[in-house]
Structures are given as C-alpha cells and as structure tokens.
C-alpha cells in the first residue's frame, strides 16, 4: 500500500516537474509548480521528514506561489500561440541516453532508505546526536537540538542571510513601498 502511494506520488511529482518545464503560459506554470511543491511536501512527509515537509508546504506551495502570482498581476502576460514549449529532439535524446547511463551505473551505489550501513550514516556524528541530544539540550526534537544547539552558529548565519536579503530588497525598492509610511 505504501509502495503504491510512493509510486503514485513519484509519478505526480515527475509529471508536474516536466509540465512546469514545458508549459509556455506563465500563470499555468505557477499553478503547476505549486502542485509540484505540494507533491514534494507529501513526499518529504512520506520519507519521515515532517520538518522539511512543513517548510516545503508553507514556503514552496504557499508563499512562493503567492509572490509569483502577485508578480504576474503586475507584469504583462503574453498569450502563447501554443501550450507546450518546443523540444529539441536530438538534445533530448542525448540527455536521455546520458541519464540512462548514469542511472544504470550509479543506481546500485545509492543506499536504501534507512539503511544503517549507508555512507551518510556517520555514527560518530549522527549517532552522537541521536543518543545525547536530549541529555545535552533537554529538547525532545533532535532536529531542533541540532539546528538551535549543536549547529546554532550555522543557524545564526542563515538567519542573518535571510534578514540581509529581505532588507536589501526593501532598500532597493523602498521608493515604491516607503512612500506610504
């Protein structure tokens, strides 16, 4: 049952991703891209990463879509003569061949989901977090313990980057916004 669900989700995400690339109408692209983000959010939840799933749902499917729609209402939208972008068939064939070669040669080296012997499973680090996060920080969600505790300096840098990006946009475009203050 869950394999069926995962397969359906995978097909959905793949179809929406390809559709996003191929559609010519910008509004349709924004709508399909939101559906893609929603599919990815479900995928993350299915892969037991609820924190990432919530972020994807709120930012990817929600806020980004709204911002893109707002931008569309302020710009010209050209009515396309056809719905689908033209595809360069020889280039597509070369890319598909390359992709098939890569997948066939590399598929075996991708670890299974949750495989304890996988290369990413660095016991010196991850196992330490899993075993000691609660005792060290008193926080039950190990993700929060890592983000705000063990790697708090990283988070500080990220927060400052978000702040700097937002403030820079405000300053660059302040003439439009701050006239109402």
């Amino acid at each position, binding site marked *: 049952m869950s394999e069926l669900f995962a397969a359906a989700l995978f097909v959905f995400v793949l179809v929406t991703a390809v559709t996003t690339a191929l559609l010519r109408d910008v509004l349709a692209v924004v709508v399909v891209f939101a559906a893609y983000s929603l599919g990815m959010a479900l995928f993350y939840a299915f892969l037991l990463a609820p924190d990432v799933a919530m972020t994807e749902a709120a930012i990817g499917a929600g806020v980004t879509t709204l911002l893109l729609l707002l931008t569309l209402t302020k710009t010209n939208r050209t009515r396309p003569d056809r719905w689908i972008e033209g595809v360069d068939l020889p280039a597509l064939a070369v890319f598909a061949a390359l992709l098939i070669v890569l997948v066939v040669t590399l598929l075996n080296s991708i670890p299974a989901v949750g495989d304890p012997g996988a290369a990413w499973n660095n016991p010196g680090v991850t196992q330490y977090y899993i075993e000691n996060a609660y005792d060290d920080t008193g926080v039950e969600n190990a993700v929060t313990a890592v983000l705000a505790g063990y790697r708090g300096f990283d988070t500080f840098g990220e927060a400052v980057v*978000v702040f700097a990006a937002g403030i820079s946009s405000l300053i660059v475009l302040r003439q439009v916004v701050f006239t109402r203050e």
Partner: protein
Amino acid sequence: MSDATGGDETGVENWRVSPDTNGRSAYVESQIIMTTVQVVTPFSLTYGLFLMFHGADSPGGSFQGGAVMAATVLMIAFAFGVAPTRDWLRNRTVVALAAGGVAAFAAVGLVPVLFGDSFLAHPRFESVFGIDTKWGLEAIEVAGVAPIVAGVLVGLFFLIAAGMNPDDQTPEARPDGGGHDPERADEGTDTETVSGGDRP
C-alpha cells in the same frame, strides 16, 4: 526553440491580469473569500504559534511557524486588500520584527561570551543562571528565527504588492508608463472601496 520565437511575432497578443484591461483593481472584494479567511485565520495563526512554541518537542520549529504566521498575514491581505493590511501592519513593524529577531538571536548568543564561554554556548545559562539549557534554544527559536522569517516574508509580500493600486505608484513606474484609456478614471473609486472595506 527557434521556431517558437518565430511564432511569437505573429500569434501573440498581450493581455493583462492587472487593472488596465478590465478597468478594475486586481483586488476583488468577495464575500466567500472574506468569510473563509475569517474562519481559517484563527486556526492557521494558532497553528503557526504552536509550531513555533512547540517546535522543540514536536516536528516543526520556528522557521515553519514563522512561515505559517506570515502566510496567515498574506491570506488576510488577499481577502481584505493589500493596502488596508499594510496600513494595519505598518512597514516599521515588519522591519522591526526582522531586525529585532537578528538582535535577539545575537544577544542570546553573546551572553555566554560575557562569561568567558564561546558564542551560543547554551549550557552556560545553566551553570551561571540556573536556567535549563532548553530555554536558550527556545529563546533563539521564538525571539530570533521566527520573527526574522515572518518579518522578511511579509515585507517581501508588501514590497511586491506595492503599486497594486494606482495611487501607490508614480506614473512612470506603471507597467505601461501612464494612463491612456478612459477606464482608468474608474480606478480611483475602486481604490476607495478597497481601502474603505473591512479592516482585518
């Protein structure tokens, strides 16, 4: 690709979603949307607050909580109009949220430095003040990251939405460089109803 650009010359006609073609503002006052948003807003705001305050003990966290709270404000703006929402949440508030978040984050991180430990060394709170290490992490989440995310997202939204109503914008900044059709005269009255509508 090359044949597609050739087709653009002949087959393309421009049309706008913006006020200019249909002669009304992009904001549409809808009873259905306003009622739905009125019902949904308390729940989504509570959910955002829950994610933020309970992120230490359950999935979620301040980033997600801040994003959900910002999305609530965006929803209110979509239902009741951007201009009234921006008058309600002034630019100053939004910038203060983001700047205050960075300042609070840095302040929490600098307290252990005062006592000779490294930046963001939360266990210092326990040995010096007797405060659980947990509250150092919570302070960063609630006072630092969440306000930054919420403030920046709402600020970006107001920024992009600015100029949605004609009186927000100088004529040069309009997409078509100024009024040319008689319908533009109607927009002044539309703006009145927008800013005179129900405030959230």
